[in-house]
């Protein structure tokens, strides 16, 4: 019953090439971006770090939710998700670079991190940011990032360890213990991820806030994680692994991509409509900037992440046929990467424009179209490929460390006989 995955030299080479492409693109961006404080480089770094850390976190959340919900069908493919959760420590390292930059003023991602911004005697004093200083300060940012991602990592490793012990020791107590840890993670993960999303992404638009934002962003992570999981599972099946999964497992993955795409649209629209209807200037500025200055990203986001999966995956058969599923997962994964792109870049562009107008000290006027801000350029795509290579290298090497089938999981027989 055991099934050992081998991480072949070809796959390693491919992922290493992707990582090299990413490193070269990051380096080129740093040297050539020409924006103040290397804004293009730092936004790309933040964008991809948050995107892949979030996917890894959702892997953990997905695993915990299914374990706690007495799910049987997912057992046949849970080792793939387990491997995805183990990327969390790498994500923490990446985010620590951003946190260090907040202290060292290497970047200007967060307007609240500027020197003297909370000091009424300084010329750049900002009363709104001063009012939020209890939350938006380097110490909270660093402590929350480290504490939260460490807790996620610890629980991910704990669940993995229990799952591996179960392989050699046929005893139901590991399963029960996994259930306990899953129950601990779910509430902690739900609240702490919202906190992280506020700090990592929402605070870029320092003056603006939205109570729907954490929902919307985690829904975006959720769809991305489902797409990556589906793509890895289909790839492994193409390589001759996971033969124990049947059409109905794949169909369920397709249903997840379909359903969570609609869920994402629902929360996206809920946030948009409340702000549009209330028409309060402090809130509408967020969408005004995106609709006026970033129309391709703003409307393209809806087309690629809602209309495309909605109409393609609506049919029964497209949710389990490999061709249509791969097509949609690739597009929607990229679509949600674009979604994060348009959460991050317009806010930075806005603050760069303000700096250009306000202080006038040597900064040139910001152009109306900037590659890498209004649309992802080749450097952004290359950076994405680099992070994807890093993520997949880690996931595949973790997958190779254990049997792809959790042989002693009490729900394995149910998964093997699964019938939608």
């Amino acid at each position: 019953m055991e099934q050992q995955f081998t991480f072949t030299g070809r796959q390693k080479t491919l992922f290493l090439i992707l990582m090299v492409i990413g490193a070269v693109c990051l380096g080129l961006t740093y040297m050539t971006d020409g924006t103040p404080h290397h804004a293009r480089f730092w936004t790309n770094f933040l964008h991809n770090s948050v995107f892949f850390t979030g996917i890894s976190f959702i892997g953990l959340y997905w695993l915990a939710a299914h374990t706690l919900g007495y799910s049987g069908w997912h057992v046949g493919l849970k080792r793939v998700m387990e491997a995805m959760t183990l990327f969390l420590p790498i994500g923490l390292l990446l985010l620590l670079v951003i946190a260090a930059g907040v202290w060292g003023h290497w970047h200007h991602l967060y307007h609240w991190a500027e020197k003297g911004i909370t000091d009424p005697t300084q010329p750049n004093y900002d009363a709104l940011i001063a009012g939020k200083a209890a939350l938006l300060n380097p110490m909270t940012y660093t402590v929350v990032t480290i504490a939260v991602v460490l807790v996620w990592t610890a629980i991910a490793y704990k669940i993995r360890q229990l799952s591996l012990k179960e392989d050699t020791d046929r005893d139901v107590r590991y399963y029960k213990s996994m259930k306990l840890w899953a129950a601990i993670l779910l509430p902690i993960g739900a609240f702490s991820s919202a906190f992280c999303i506020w700090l990592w992404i929402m605070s870029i638009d320092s003056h603006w806030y939205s109570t729907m934002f954490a929902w919307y962003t985690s829904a975006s992570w959720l769809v991305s994680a489902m797409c990556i999981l589906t793509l890895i599972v289909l790839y492994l099946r193409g390589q001759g692994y996971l033969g124990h999964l049947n059409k109905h497992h794949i169909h369920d993955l397709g249903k997840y991509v379909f359903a969570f795409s609609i869920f994402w649209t629902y929360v996206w629209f809920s946030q948009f409509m409340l702000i549009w209807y209330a028409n309060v200037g402090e809130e509408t500025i967020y969408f005004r900037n995106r609709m006026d200055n970033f129309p391709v990203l703003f409307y393209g986001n809806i087309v690629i992440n809602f209309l495309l999966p909605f109409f393609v995956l609506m049919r029964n058969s497209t949710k389990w046929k490999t061709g249509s599923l791969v097509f949609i997962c690739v597009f929607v994964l990229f679509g949600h990467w674009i979604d994060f792109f348009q959460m991050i870049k317009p806010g930075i562009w806005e603050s760069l424009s303000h700096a250009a107008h306000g202080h006038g000290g040597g900064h040139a006027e910001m152009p109306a179209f900037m590659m890498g801000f209004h649309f992802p350029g080749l450097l952004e795509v290359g950076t994405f490929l680099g992070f994807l290579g890093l993520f997949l290298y880690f996931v595949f090497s973790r997958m190779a460390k254990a049997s792809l089938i959790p042989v002693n999981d009490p729900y394995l027989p149910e998964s093997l006989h699964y019938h939608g």
Partner: protein
Amino acid sequence: MKKVLFGLYNDDTELLDAIKGANDAGLDIMDVYTPFPVHGLDDVMGLSESRLHQAGFIYGALGTMTALGVMTWVFTRDWPIIFGGKPYFSFPAFVPITFELTVLFASVGMVLTFYIVCGLGPFAKANVLHDRITDDKFCIAFDTSNMSQVDVEKYAAFLDSSGAAEIHTKDI
């Protein structure tokens, strides 16, 4: 009026095996009745995929068009009122109602279609071949209205040999 010959089986594995046997023997099954949904039954019976969801899509699309059409007509032609400084045609404000009517039309339409196709509904008389089909027996039924006596005996012999616990005939 149909003359139905049917056999009652004790569990679902016996039933599935019997259906496969009937297919191999080239017997023409009228229908199969079970007390609960049996996995894999559609496949062995060779049933084609239900078209109910296609009907659902049409109802849903009708709901979308109704909602958008009525709201657009009311708020731009029939009785234009400005709400909260928004234009007469305010698409974002129409979306929630469009969504609701799409779901409502699709779900109610599908339920009604299902009832009509299956002959269900209040005051409808159910034709239950045997009471225990609704409890713990699994039934394979053959339509013997136009069969010769030889054929009927052949079908009955099949039911007997495939492990049916009881064999009955009934006119419905």
